[in-house]
């Protein structure tokens, strides 16, 4: 199942855990576990949900503090 998840992620794109669970015919909880497993193996990286800009650029940015998008993981390449 982990291999099928890796194959799915290699196709690229954006997924919700529920999308992956449906595609793999399993539960979101198990997908969560597999994603954490892949993150431990370095196959995917956790995404910090913070504005990536510098403090100086954020000072006048109308988006400061509002620019987080709920990304959790991304593939490394």
């Amino acid at each position, binding site marked *: 199942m982990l291999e099928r998840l890796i194959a799915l992620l290699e196709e690229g794109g954006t*997924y919700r855990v529920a999308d992956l669970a449906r595609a793999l015919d399993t539960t979101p909880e198990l997908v969560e576990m597999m994603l954490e497993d892949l993150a431990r193996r370095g196959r995917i990286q956790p995404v910090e949900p913070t504005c990536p800009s510098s403090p100086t650029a954020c000072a006048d*940015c109308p988006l400061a503090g509002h620019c987080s998008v709920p990304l959790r993981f991304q593939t490394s390449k």
Partner: protein
Amino acid sequence: MSTDRTVSQVKTPSVVRERPILVALAGQPNVGKSTLFNLLTGLHQHVGNWPGKTVERKEGTFTRDGTTYRLVDLPGTYSLTANSLAELIAREFIIRERPDVVIAVVDAATLERSLYLVAELLPLPAPVVVALNMMDVAQQEGIQVEPKVLQAALGVPVVPMSAVHKIGIQELLETVERMARGEIPYTPRLPQIRQDQRQVLDSIGERIAGYVPSPYPPEWVALKLLEGDPEITAMMRSALPPERWDEVHAILRAHDDAQVAVASGRYEWIGRMVRAAVTRPRAGQIGLTERLDRWVTHPVFGLFILAGVLGLVFWLTYTVGAPLQGLMETYVVGTLADGVRSLLSGAPAWLSSLLADGVIGGAGAVLTFLPILVLFFATMAFLEDVGYMARVAYVMDSFMRLIGLHGKSFLPLFLGFGCNVPAVLGTRMIESRRARLLTILLAPLVPCTARMAVVVFLAPAFFGAAAPLVSWGLVLLSLTVLALTGILLNRILFGGRRSAFIMELPLYHLPNWRTIGLSVWQRSLSFVRKAGTVIVVVSVVIWLLSAFPGGSPEESFLALLGRWLEPAGRLLGLDWRLTVALLSSFIAKENSIATLGVLFRANEEGLAEILAATYPLPTALAFLVVQVLFIPCVATVGTIRQETASWRWTLFSVGLLLAIAFLAGGATFHIARWFGSF
């Protein structure tokens, strides 16, 4: 589950067995393992450290019906790899001490997570009894776990219980005792691996046979070698003759995907167990979110809904905001300018003109669309707070994948709707230089708040009731140009590889008005600060250039510059004033309005009315098209230089956007004029 027998009924034994039954308590953290341990051992427990380790070791004894039990609480672990000390201690204890029974405490409410450890316990040389704890919590959450079905699927005894409520303890102890006495047949169903990997496993097993140090089970050692377990690998490297190790090592190197295959087998196994024994509810709120998301996040319908939502935002902004903007123009800016003039009636004419025409006419004109922006910010903050903006990100990404853009680019591009500066900075998250460069080049094509502010101000003046449609069309045009440019540049610069993202969409919920209010306040304040600093300075500079040397804008330095550039502007239907307004937007996008305010001395009557009376619709449309596609503000260009570390790419970006704006503006003007001639 029985509720009438609890551990308090455990009697003091009259006859004590010679050798106590050794029981190991295994489980992940927070599954109630410690509660069960304390419940069974009471005061008869000893806390120390595992030999040579700083990890706490808890051990205790208790007796039941004359039988003494020695209970060892293993460290809480999620698996039995060699990656953590706790996991190493747990597996070494089971292998070396060979407990009579291992109680695997699992959480019935999160069975998947608990079962991974069980999958690793089953191949070890000790019988396992599964204590299905927290059945009460699972029931409260509407999760139905069938212990008998799980038992049949696992092939080991499963006892439902609740350690907190002391339910099922006697049944557990009875099962443990019967298991220890060999009265229960033990036929665990182990996780399987792919057939090709199975052959590799057998091949390793054959080569290590006879060399595995006691008491390690050879099959388990072969599996751990296949998994790349560092402890077992080191052990077998020492135990095997060098030439035999080289053979094993060569097999392992040729099958480095086996690590994933072994884990994959365990996940398949967990999936089967859960499918067989667990039924989950579809709760009301989650159901509503899922139902809505079927449409809102649909790759096609989601885009239509997004277009509709954006259209609604613009419509609302204009319907309510435009009249307020008119009132601000008449009663605030007009009154203020008149007041300054009458106050400075005795002062030099240039000072009165500087303040009334330069500062108030320029920065004041920009400030008049504060009500429109407040409404725009409020609707965006509302959408963000109810959970829709996260869906925008999701839908936008699907859209970009359809046109072949790099998936990783969507986050910074999405930020661009607020401001292009963080969009360019946000590309730092992209490791690939080519992908990052492509995203930087595309980021200025996302219509930022400042560009939209200009559109929001000018569209109603020129197009009246059709303003929302025009604004919506301009956003669509920007995104279409972005997509086409992306496809083109992607083919040239980018190899077409795509990243995957996993994102969490929050549940839809009722808005928190305080959060929305704070957001609107912060964004509006930031806009007012900008109007009070950069735009005031630019307004004064524009006034100076428009007032000297001749005294009237028509004979000014600015007119000279504008007229010099006018031949290019004429191709797009723009006169020198609109050309200068575009140039001034390089400092900050809102300066387009401020500049036109100064050039038309707009405080005496509304700028919107003057512009509507001055320019025909093809010119107005071409100006708006150029405005949304024109080179970004100086802050964004500076950031592009900083992030690309290259003047060449910065100039390429500026040139690319100039060309796009010029071509699109020219096409718009001529097509609109052609239509207008009918």
